[in-house]
Each structure stands twice: as C-alpha cells, then as structure tokens.
C-alpha cells in the first residue's frame, strides 16, 4: 500500500504492508524519538502530532495518514537550538530516564497549539496519556507550566509550533 503525507515538514511517500502502524513505520525510518512502550495506546511513549493533535502512533494505521501532517520530536530542535519545552524540561530536570520525555513534550505542544489560557489542570490532562514511572510528573508539570505561561506572557505562543 502507498501513502503520501507530510513528515516533519517534508512530503514523503511510503510503501507499507497492510496493518503497519505509524509507530512501526517511523521507528523503521529511524525516527527513534517515537518510543515503543505498550502497543495499545496506553503509555503514550510513541506520541506524535497528527495535524497538530497528539496521537499514539502505535494506534494509527499507515493507510490513514495519507494527506496528513505528522510531526515527531526530531523536528523540534536544531543542533543549536532547543524548543522552549525542551529547554525547560532540561532546566527543571523533568527528563529522568527520558524514555517518556518525547511523548510528553509532544502532548504539551498539542495543548499549547490548541489552548488559549493554560492552567495546571489542563497540563495534567494533557499529560494523562503519557505514563511516566520516574518523575511522579512533578517536574514535567512544572516545566510545562513555566514554558506555556511564559510564551503567553510574551504573546508569541502562536509562533512556537516547532521548527516546521
């Protein structure tokens, strides 16, 4: 089967076997920020953005991505510059083992893009699908709030949709 979609700002064509998931495809293409944790959409480690919404890539079948816009964490930073969420995750010590960090950042980015005002309840809701066994979510929530509130203060949060 064949699909065409936008991946991190580039148009790609992909041939895949029926039943292939977006997670399998992306890891196969060495987008390793997409982690494999459960295969059932429960842990959130494989979170990516599909048309700016956070989805579990393990639940997305490849034939459904035709014409969509997919973003992975690989597109969020350049070799010189981190995305503000990445900066604050680093600063707050929010990445402990770091395995669920990419998924968390993508879920928060989706929240950032869809919401106006941000509060802790929204942040916790956004992270509820990203299981983390290391941090108790304390520092990820803190990093998220400091990033998303700061971007709203400066009024430029609309412009922060990654580097794509």
């Amino acid at each position, binding site marked *: 089967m064949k699909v065409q979609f936008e991946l991190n700002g580039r148009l790609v064509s992909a041939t895949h076997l029926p039943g292939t998931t977006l997670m399998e495809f992306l890891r196969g293409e*060495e987008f*390793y*920020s997409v*982690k*494999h*944790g*459960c*295969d*059932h959409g*429960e*842990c959130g*480690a494989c979170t990516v953005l599909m048309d700016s919404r956070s989805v579990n890539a393990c639940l997305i079948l490849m034939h459904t991505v035709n014409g969509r816009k997919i973003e*992975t*964490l*690989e597109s*969020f*930073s350049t070799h010189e510059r*981190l995305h503000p969420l*990445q900066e604050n*995750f*680093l*600063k*707050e*010590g929010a*990445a*402990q*083992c*770091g*395995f*669920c*960090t*990419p998924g968390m*950042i993508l879920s928060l980015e989706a929240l950032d893009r869809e919401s106006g005002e941000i509060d802790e309840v929204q*942040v*916790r*809701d956004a*992270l*509820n699908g*990203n*299981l*983390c*066994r*290391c*941090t*108790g*979510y*304390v*520092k*990820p*929530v803190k990093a998220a709030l400091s990033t998303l509130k700061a971007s709203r203060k400066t009024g430029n949060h609309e412009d922060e949709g990654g580097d794509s």
Partner: protein
Amino acid sequence: MKVIGKDTQRVDGQALVRGKPVFADDMQLKDVLYVKILHSPIAHANILSIDVSKAEALEGVVAVFTHKDFKPHYYTTAGQGYPEPGPRDMRILDETVRFVGDRVAFVAAESITIAEQAIGLIDVEYEELPCIFDSQQSMTAGFAIHPSEGTSGIHDVEKNIAAHLDAKIGDVEAALAGSAHTFEGSYSTPFVQMAHIEPHISLSWLDDNNRLVIRTSTQVPHHVRRIVAEVLDIPVGRIRVIKPRIGGGFGGKQEILNEEVVGAVTLKTGRPARIEYTRAEELFAARVRHPELLTIQLGFDESHLLTAIDINILEDCGAYGPHALTVMSVTSQKALSMYKAPNIRVNGDGVYTNLPIGGAYRGYGAPQAFFPLESLMDEAAMEMGIDPIDLRLKNVFEVGDDVPIAKILGEGREGFPMVLYSTEIAACLNEGRALSNWDALRSAEQSGRFRRGVGVAVAGQGSGIPGIDMGAAFIKMNEDASFNLQIGATDLGTGSDTALAQIAAEVLNVSVDKIIVYSSDTDMTPFDTGAYASSTTYISGTAVKKAAEACKAMILEQGRKLLQIDNAEIIDTRVVGSDGQTISFSDICIKSFYTEEQTQIMGSASHLSYDSPPPFNATFAEVEVDTLTGTVRVIKIVSVTDAGQIINPKMAEGQVEGGIPQALGMALSEFMPFDDKGRFTNLDFNSYHIYTSNDMPEMVVRFADSHEPTGPYGAKAVAEIPINAPAPAVANAVYNAVGVRIKHLPIKPEQILAGMNGK
C-alpha cells in the same frame, strides 16, 4: 563546595530532551533475527513432548530452541554478588514449567510476525502437575516444585522452602511477657510490578573478531557478562555488554532476563538477534515484587520504649528463587534497624509457588517490612494514647547507636557491625509535622460522606551492600583540562552519571561540563557490581572521588616537576609554586603529552565499604475517604528525607517524587489478580493501573540537613528510601479518617466499607 549540592545540567540531558537514539533499541542491525519466546500457558507441568517441525518449516524461521538444545545447567537470573546467595534453580529451557509465563521454547525468525506465527506452530504435550497458588500452603503441599537433581542452594526441596533465615538478640519471649504493653498483627503486601515504561530489550551480534556483543537495557552489565558466559559456556573475555541509556529499571533490570536467549541465537546462527518483551509479557513473564506475609509482635515498657520486636516472615518467591534469601533478609534487616529494641527476633521462610517470579524491585524487601511495622506502631500509639510522631521519636536509633542486627544478618551470610554516624530522622519527623499540618488535621472533627485523615510512617534503607558492593572508576586528563571519567556504574535513568561527574568535578576544581562520562560497557569501563541496593552514589561515588584525587595528585606532581620546585599546591585550576610561579592545568597536560616529563595524567580507584549508612525518611499522607463507595484519594504527601549531603538537589527530588507514586500504586491502584489456573489477568496498563498525572496528590519533598562522614562529600543513598513509607502512611491516614485498620494491600474499597460496617 562549588559543584556538590548544586543543580547542574544532566550530562545526558540534551540527548534525552531531543529524543536522540540513545536507548537500546534505537538502532538497526543488518540481517537481524527477531526472537520470540513460547511461554507456558500452564502453571505447573512436565513437557512430555515438544514438536517444532511445523515451526521450523515456516518460511522465515531460522532457528527454534527447546530444552533439548541445552545441557541441563542450573543458574539464577539474579544479577547480584557471586557466588549468589540464593538458590540456583533455573535452566535456560527446562522439561518442567512452573508458572504461567515460564519459558518453553524460543524462535528466531526474519520478522516479529513470522516469529509469533512460529510460536503458535509449536506442539507441546503437557502433563499437568498439581499447583500451589497460596504461599501458606507451600510447605505442606506434599509435593516439591523443584525436585530436580542439579539444583543447588534450595533450603528445603521437599517443603518448597527456597530460603530460610533466623536471627535473634536477647530474649524476645521473656521481654514480651514482661512488657507493660504488647501488640500483635499480621499484614500482607502484594505482587506488584516495576512497570518501567521501556520494556526489557536486548540486542546481540558478533563483532569483527567473532566476539559476542550484547546491547541491553540492564542495571548490571558485569553480572550479565558473567551469567551469559556461564549459561552459554563461553569465556567471559568473548563477551562485551553495553548498557546505553535505560528507560527505567527499578530492579526489574537487575535480572538477566533475556540476554542469554539472544546470545544463544547469535552464537548458533552467527546473525544479530533482538528480543523485546511486549507489555503483556512484562506483566506476566518478567519479575514482580515478592509478596510477604508478616506477623509482628511489639512490646513496650511503661514509658513507651520498645522492649522487643518479633517478626515472622512468609515470602512468596513464585516459581523460582532469584533474590529469595536477600529480599527477605532486607525485610528483616530494615525492620530491625529503625527502632532500638533490646530484644529482637526474626524467623523467615521464602517459599515456592506456581506464580510469577519475585525479583528485585526498588526497596527490595523494605516496603514489605515497613508497611507492617509502621502500621503496628501506629496502632500501638493509638492504644497507648501517645502521638504517633512522639512514639517514633522516642524509639528511633540515634547517632552513635550500634545497630546490632546488621552484624548478624548480612547479604546471605553474617554481616558487618553498624554504627549510625548520621541520622536526622527526628528532624524529618519534626519538619513533616509542620508541613503536613499534622496537629490541626489529626484533631479535626470528621463527619459526612467525605472524611479526611492524616497518617505518618518512617523508614530506612541502606547505601550499598556492605562488604560486597564494589565500584571502580578511571579518569584521564586531556589537554584542555577536560577529563574522561570511565565508570562501571550503571545509570538506569536516575542521573547517576551526572552525580558522579559532579563528584569528579568537585575534586578536580573544574566545571561539570569538563567531565566526559562514559559508563557501563564491560570492554571499556572498569568493574562495578551494578545499579542496585542504592549503591551508586555512595559506593561508585567514593570510587570516583578516590580516582579523581589520584588524578589530582598526579597533576600536582607533574606541575611540581614542570615548575622545578619542591613545594607547590593546587589553587583552582593551577599549580602554584612556593616561589609564586604558576602553571595552568591545561599547560601541565599539554607539556606532559608533548614536550616535557611526558606521561598520561590519570587516576583509578576501586571502592568497597563495610558501612552501609541508612538514609531515613518520614512520610506524611493526607487522604480523603469516600464513606459511600469506600474509595481512598490521596490529597497530599509530605516526604522528608535524610540522604546525607545531597549531590544534586533536583535529581534527588526526582528520586523521591518518582518513588512516591510507585508506593501509592502498591497501596491503592496496582492490582495483580490471578485466576484459578494461576493466570495473571491484568495484562495491560488499562487494567494494571500505575499513577498518571491526574492521579497525583500534592507533593511536598524536602531533605534534612545531614552529613554522612563515610560518604563521598557526606552523601548517602536516595534511590530506594522514598518508596518505603508512603503505603503505611496512607493506611494510617485511612485509620485516622474512618477508623478502619488496613492490614492487606492493596487497599480495596470493599475492605474500607466492611471495616466501617463492622464497627
């Protein structure tokens, strides 16, 4: 201090927040074979016959392995000291299966799909055997789960006792008989799972020199190398084990779970191999926390001082006995290292059942100790009419006290004397009393449907295993006064690489970014027993400190030679002669490489300790109980820890903040029910519920001002201590809210409702 006690960017932080390919599975191996295991669907059976011909005939299947492919050899999957203190009762593949999830066979194929299909094509004829699903029936079942010849170290084969321990000091019976107050209770702690988000994953291949390379998510690379060498009967020197970044371990990766399986495939086929557990396999076929049933008696004199502690332990080891003895000895040791009772006694049996295998899980027996002990202490305080905090303050060990149990109960053998050089448990309790609003909440009238309560519990742990855990470090200097730090110590996601870099930086007067860390590669780094028993900061950290000091001494020596002066000292990053001449670290190294007195400036050291100073913790839980439904919601946790000098505050906080929800899961949300065939039924994260961001209570995490004289810069351990006290604190808070005493975890709403109705 310039670096110690300060937050610093993690040495692996950039890679982690960028999602760089730093985990075990983040690479592609050409011609890799995918390995799948056929797990037993039956809890106890002999394999009468096994026919793999259909599986082998499937296109894309390269190799199928059964017990016929291996000589009977018994080992243990426990990645701990050698010779192992527990039984050797497991084979890579056996003719008998002993729990639902035991290995029957494994397949290597060109794709995961083909491997899965092939597993389904293996025909196995089982002869079902009687099963034990209740540890209380193990000793009297009348049949043995491990009757095979060739096993070793099983305490009593016929009675299914994998391990036994007993120890006593004084005369417990006489002391209890003469006590003004005595209390007794039986408590149980359940099966729970480590539930690291990264599953067990191992890759293997042959390098250009035909050596076996294993890249694996492990906490114990050197134990992996030793055990794989033994099981596959190849020399240690032919194996290289590489641990990249690890997506959480919590003890689950202190096990040699599948490394020998991929190794066998690669050795037989010559091709790279990969095995990764699915989440379901993690839950039913990996390792769990040993459930324990404890009966405790406490005696107090008229002034509420403990006279005696008597502990009986029944530990459920599951089908095999890795960690059987040592988990139980940690339960005993930690329970008897908290309070100074002159008479103590412990008697414990670790027994086999046909249920999943108990392994190492953060706390390692200590959570099983402190739930019973701290619940009964709370009950004693209530009955004697004394504040639970005050009762603990009266009885805890203090600085200078001898902790006698440590000497008689060590890691599977006699231990070493222990004197407390540091404890701030009183400060932890007092700070927690204020932060939890204890006095107001304890006395608040409770009525209506939702009732609040507050409870407290204290706990201790260790800092490495005394006389056993050894870590080594090597440091070499570069021209720009940066240093390569090579350590066997294993960062399993805790940030220990960063903490160890901070220790090196502090010694060498440089910033942390001048320390280039490379860890956990058996070819490239020196030995370390591994990341368990809260050993890395204390043991490996001291090795790093000693290696850095040796390196620094060599810098001074080279500086003296280059300045041609006898008396000199190091100030910042210069060697300064008594005559005022100076030379920078960088110039010393450049000259030492290229022009004068040529040598490599370097240092190496090993460290082993006969001390294992306990970190301490006081946890306060505020809960809300719904008296209509019986559900318990944790509102707030206050956790105050004495971990000695904190090396990196944010990382230490992270350890505590992560340990608490694991403990709350054991108390409230993580259920491992089995059906009547011994099959675990919660095979995904929907049903095995670990804490989510929305489940979390308000968290208040603090550290006491503390200094441990035997630790590197005064540090003790912090990794395991936070997991011990939250469960009993919650149970005690439930009692404070609704008067129901919880004796069995996890807390179920029906327990609460039954308790309330029984009143």
